[in-house]
């Protein structure tokens, strides 16, 4: 024993560090990653690789050459952003579009605010929305899942896109559903057009349960989003089933599961308190449905989360932890 250590209490520390938490998120995303590669083939693998590598490299170079601070890629957060960005893109996205997305996600949405913990908006979503607005052709060019080594890309539209298009042309919801043969089990297990991460709800839910078990996140934000979507769409659907899609369809299609389980629950950009989280979730669910039903885009989860991200500081101000011995 040489010099003894002296510090204020406590003298023990939980083993859960930032890197452990972020690594758990990566592990939780693995089922979805595997499923997306199986469905969409090597092209999806390319998108994933480009996205993760460029996110990590950009963070490394920004910390090294611009901020001149200790490198932060060891905390795995850049890898998480990379995977989430890739899962939010169609597998047909060209590599350079993915790269631009990564630059916006890490370079603009994260590092300009000062890196992990400082950003206001979810980096992966900022990257995705930037690409959606800048390169709408690539971003709405969905491919049907074609298997690991499939080459014949069959392009199509997402269920939400089909419905929106159809409704604009005057068709009714049940007609469109029947016409395209959408079934709920198909939506739950796979094989619907969309971005890679939207393909299989079950894989995402498995990851979500893993995060809950590991106590990385609490379920309240996700439940509040899904509950709001279900409740609000039920009201609209009961009022007019011809015009509005039903709750189950709304829960299972699009990026809702991915968004509510992995994007909205991002620590940095979600409220600190459970109460705040529930309000945050209600906001996301409501805005998502409003965009789906009345907006010009077929899907609104990304926008909804980003809009609610901007409200988080206010939610943190309004909602506080219940204090001991105080009214």
């Amino acid at each position: 024993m040489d010099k003894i250590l002296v510090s204020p209490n406590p003298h023990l520390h939980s083993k859960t560090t930032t890197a452990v938490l972020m690594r758990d998120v990566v592990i939780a995303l693995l089922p979805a990653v595997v499923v997306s590669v199986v469905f969409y083939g090597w092209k999806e693998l390319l998108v994933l690789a480009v996205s993760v590598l460029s996110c990590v490299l950009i963070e490394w170079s920004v910390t090294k050459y611009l901020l001149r601070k200790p490198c932060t890629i060891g905390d795995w957060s850049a890898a998480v952003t990379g995977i989430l960005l890739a899962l939010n893109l169609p597998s047909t996205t060209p590599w350079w579009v993915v790269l631009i997305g990564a630059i916006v996600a890490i370079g603009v949405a994260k590092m300009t605010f000062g890196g992990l913990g400082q950003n206001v908006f979810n980096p992966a979503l900022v990257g995705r929305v930037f690409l959606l607005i800048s390169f709408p052709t690539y971003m709405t060019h969905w491919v049907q899942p074609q298997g690991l080594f499939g080459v014949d890309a069959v392009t199509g539209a997402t269920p939400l896109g089909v419905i929106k298009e159809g409704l604009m042309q005057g068709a009714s919801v049940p007609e469109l559903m029947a016409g395209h043969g959408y079934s709920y089990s198909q939506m739950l297990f796979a094989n619907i057009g969309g971005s890679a991460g939207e393909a299989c709800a079950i894989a995402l839910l498995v990851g979500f349960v893993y995060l809950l078990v590991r106590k990385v996140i609490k379920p309240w934000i996700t439940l509040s989003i899904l509950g709001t979507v279900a409740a609000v769409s039920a009201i609209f659907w009961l009022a007019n089933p011809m015009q509005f899609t039903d709750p189950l369809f709304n829960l299972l299609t699009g990026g809702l599961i991915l968004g509510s389980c992995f994007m909205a629950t991002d620590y940095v950009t979600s409220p600190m308190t459970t109460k705040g989280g529930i309000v945050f979730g209600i906001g996301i669910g409501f805005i998502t449905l409003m965009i789906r039903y009345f907006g010009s885009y077929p899907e609104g989860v990304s926008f909804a989360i980003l809009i609610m991200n901007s409200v988080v500081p206010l939610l943190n101000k309004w909602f506080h932890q219940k204090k001991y011995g105080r009214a």
Partner: protein
Amino acid sequence: MARRTFSIGGVHPSDAKISRDCKIEVLPIAPTVYIAVAQHIGAPAKPVVAPGDKVKAGDVIAEPGAFMSAYIHSSVSGTVKSIGPRQDLSGNIQTVVEIEVEGDEWKEGIDLSDTLVTDIPEDPKAIIEKVRLGGVVGLGGATFPTHVKLSLPPGKKCEMLIINGCECEPYLTSDFRTLLEKGEQVVVGTALLMQALGVDKATIAIEDNKPEAIEHISGIVSAFKAKGGKYEGIEVLPLMKKYPEGGEKQLIDAVMHRQVPSGCLPIDVGAVVDNVCTALAVYEAVQKDKPLVENSVTVTGECFPKQANLMVRVGTPLRYIIDYLGGVPQEAAKVISGGPMMGKAVANLDAATLKGTGGLLFLTREQTKRMPESSCIRCGKCSEACPMGLEPFLLRRLYKAGDMEALEANAAQDCIMCGCCLYSCPAGIPLLDIVSQARGQVMGIMRARAAAAKAAAEAAKPKTE
């Protein structure tokens, strides 16, 4: 039955009670003891001996400096060598009575036998006076003079006495061993405390990671019920293991489902909380006339070769205890007086034990070295863990901005220094270091304001008269 615990926050550090099976062993008396005159919250005691005086174990060597103070007794027999400054375990200078040990003679009138005395004196005042004369202080960590706690403020009524046997700190086992080995005395001590407080209900709260203790004490309590009187109102309550259950405020919440309002004392919700070792000390002071001169100390740590629970005379040098058990191990990087969550890191191994010393813990560098601080990821784990429902991340930000008003509004002064925030922070941010600074400054401001208000009220008085 649902596992009861406190309602807000808390963490679950690993139990690590590796010395739980070690019986309490009497440590041979050190050749020289150093008894500090400030061993309790409140005014330091005033030494009443002079160098050269002969003292016996149990003799008063320092008298209370104020109401909020306590008697200090010699823990050994021998000659007072000096009264002067000496570094405590933090390296700060304290006034210490140095006694060179000669033999082991006790003051006359002290009953050192093992006979259990279960008859409770009638007069509460007599009990409190004996507790005061015995120099009994709270042994749960805060060393609050017990006679002050027992002297209820006028108009306040105690509804329940809670005996704290939680020992929620990892590693420590001295309360557990005391419950197992001196359970009868603890139960009698509980009844004495009930009599002093004039209360009919008492709960001995024990965390459910100590099933032996729960069983043992339950057995004693039910056997003693036949004696009637105060013994009838004693219950044993198992609580779910969660840190910091042994915190006074948390324990009241867990046992009584009441919360002590900010700035108030437990008695304001009708509760008085005392540690099991305090109950034992009360028993000894009242029934045996034996003052508080020794206490049980857990010496433990994975890297420490010999785990032990020792009965140690107050004022024994830490180094003497450690050497008795084989010296400081090579791998040990930190020595902690108390538990790993709220204990104090020892900077000076030549310091001596105090009445409140409950443990000596050795941790390795891997176990205890703080990780480098990285940026806050706003996960909110600190605020989930805080048993007072504070938001440490917010308090840190406000402290850095120097916003004292906002710190007060966000209850920085309510911090109980349990360390849950820093324990749970994944980014290794020294939250408690900062919050405790904020707490100190806010408390200073509040005290200054209260003093100013009092002065203003007094200045206004003559005008109205």
